[in-house]
Each structure stands twice: as C-alpha cells, then as structure tokens.
C-alpha cells in the first residue's frame, strides 16, 4: 500500500465526518407526519444536536431530502423534480409508513412507496414515527454518510 492511497482514505473519512454533522435538509412535508417532524426538530428532541438543525427551503442548497407524509400520484412529478434539482451528493429519507410503502392508503390516489419514483437511503416506518425513531433513522443516515455511501 503506497503513501497516496493511505492519504486518500483518510481524506474520505474526514469528508464523511464533516458531512454527517452538517446535514442541510429539505423538508418535503405533505401530511400529518409533519407534526412529528416539527416535534423532532424543536428543542425537546432537538435535531440540531446531530447537525441537522437548519432546513433549507430550496432543494439546490440541500443535502438530504426528508419526504414527510403521503405522496399522491398527482404530487409524484413534483417530488421527482425536487429530487432532480438537488445537487450531489444527496440522500433521501422516507419519513413515515406512507412514504415507505403507501401505508394503509392502498387506493387509486396514493404512490405505493416513494422508492418507486426516487431512490431512498433510510426508511423510518411508523404512523407517524415517534421522534426517537426519527433520531434513530437520522443516526443511521449519518453512518451511511460517514461511510461515503453516495449515489452518482
């Protein structure tokens, strides 16, 4: 193993460490899960402890797309467009069972899981998920980011 490869691997780790504590998220909030998202973001659970406290309301400035709530077929092209507008590297969190699988909305209106439209990194099930689940999902995402798992 040469000197160069040793240096590169350490640089990746440093970048991963920096990225996982500076998550700029884009909250795509469409339904009731939004209340739980707010509870997680506020001071009691305080998502800022994990460096994810500053939501960006432009997808161009965001690293992580939080899809929070039911996605209807009418909304699906909008979600896809938002995802396409995000710059690399980017990650996606499916927040709540509706985004994971469609939940109990097995009907004409609802997308049966957002992974049919865009790639998803972390699934947080629950209807809605408790803030502890969300933080658990966030930490799993941090592990993924630190490991350099990205999609190009």
């Amino acid at each position, binding site marked *: 193993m040469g000197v160069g490869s040793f240096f590169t691997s350490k640089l990746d780790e440093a970048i991963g460490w920096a990225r996982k504590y500076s998550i700029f998220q884009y909250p795509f909030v469409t339904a009731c899960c939004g209340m739980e998202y707010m509870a997680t973001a506020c001071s009691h659970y305080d998502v800022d402890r994990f460096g994810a406290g500053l939501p960006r309301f432009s997808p161009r400035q965001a690293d992580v797309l939080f899809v929070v709530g039911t996605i209807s077929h009418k909304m699906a092209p909008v979600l896809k467009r938002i995802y396409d507008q995000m710059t690399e590297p980017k990650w996606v969190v499916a927040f709540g069972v509706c985004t994971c699988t469609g939940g109990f909305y097995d*009907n004409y209106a609802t997308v049966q899981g957002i992974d049919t439209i865009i790639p998803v990194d972390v699934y947080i099930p629950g209807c809605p998920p408790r803030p502890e689940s969300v933080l658990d999902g966030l930490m799993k995402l941090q592990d993924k980011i630190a490991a350099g798992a990205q999609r190009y």
Partner: protein
Amino acid sequence: MEGAAILDRLRARFGAAVVETHAHRGDHTAVVERAAIVEIMTFCRDETDLGFDMLSDLTAVDFLKFPGREDGPRFEVVYHLYSLAHNHRVRLKIRVDEDQAVVPTAVSVWPIANWLEREVWDMFGIRFQGHPDPRRLLMYEEFVGHPLRKDYPINRRQPLIGPKI
C-alpha cells in the same frame, strides 16, 4: 324553526316538486325534482324564516347494487343546508340516473358550490349544467374515470410517473 315545519313549508310552496320527505333522528330530508332544485334552493336562502345562508356540503352517493335499490336511479346528489341565523338544517336530495347524470348548477345560489360541484364531477362523474369552470378538482387531468363510482376497479392505478401497476 323545527325540521318538520321546514319540510311543511317546502311542500306547501312547491307541491309535487317535493317527491318525498323523511326524518331520521332529527335530520330532515326532502327529495325533490331535478328541474326545481335551483328554485327550491333560492327559496330556502331568501325566505326570512328559513334563511339558509350556507351550503355546508354538496356531495353524491352511488347506489349501484345497493340492496333494495337495484332498479332505482343510480345516483343521489345531496345538498346540506344550514342557517347561521336560525341554527337549523335541512337536507335536499335529487335522484339522477346514470345515462342522464346532469344536474343544474347551484353556483348562482351559493358560490361555494363551485368547488363542491367540481369535486362531485371528479369523483362521481355527475355533470353540472351551467357550471362556470367544469374541471376536475382533486385528480389530475390525465386521470380516466371517476374513482368513487362503485364500478371503478378497486385495484386500478393511474400513476403519472413511475411503474405502471
């Protein structure tokens, strides 16, 4: 005003245009002729003692294969009227057949009927004659059919993007 008295008022004024009335646990309903609906609603709104100044809901029911109603008209369009001044309610219904699913619009009486009628068109495929903006309200333009009809296949999906299922 008591519900029974409201129904009496309607029967006295419109006679045969009121097809049928009934009451169930304090809810009073008049089934009326389709042609007279706008006139009846205007009467309900403008008479001082009735004073129905609010259309609190406008919806429809599909009775396809409903036990005991297989032969009757397929749809009912339902109007829920409320009076803020008198705190009383009444429900008006029209029965429409599938092949003549057209109803006069109520937009001229209550502007809120605009979106409610668009929703009924979207979900049940009942058209409203004279509606100023007869587009779908909830579903997208590419959607085919009317999902709350009882014969809409329960597994039929029409995604705009993603896998066709």
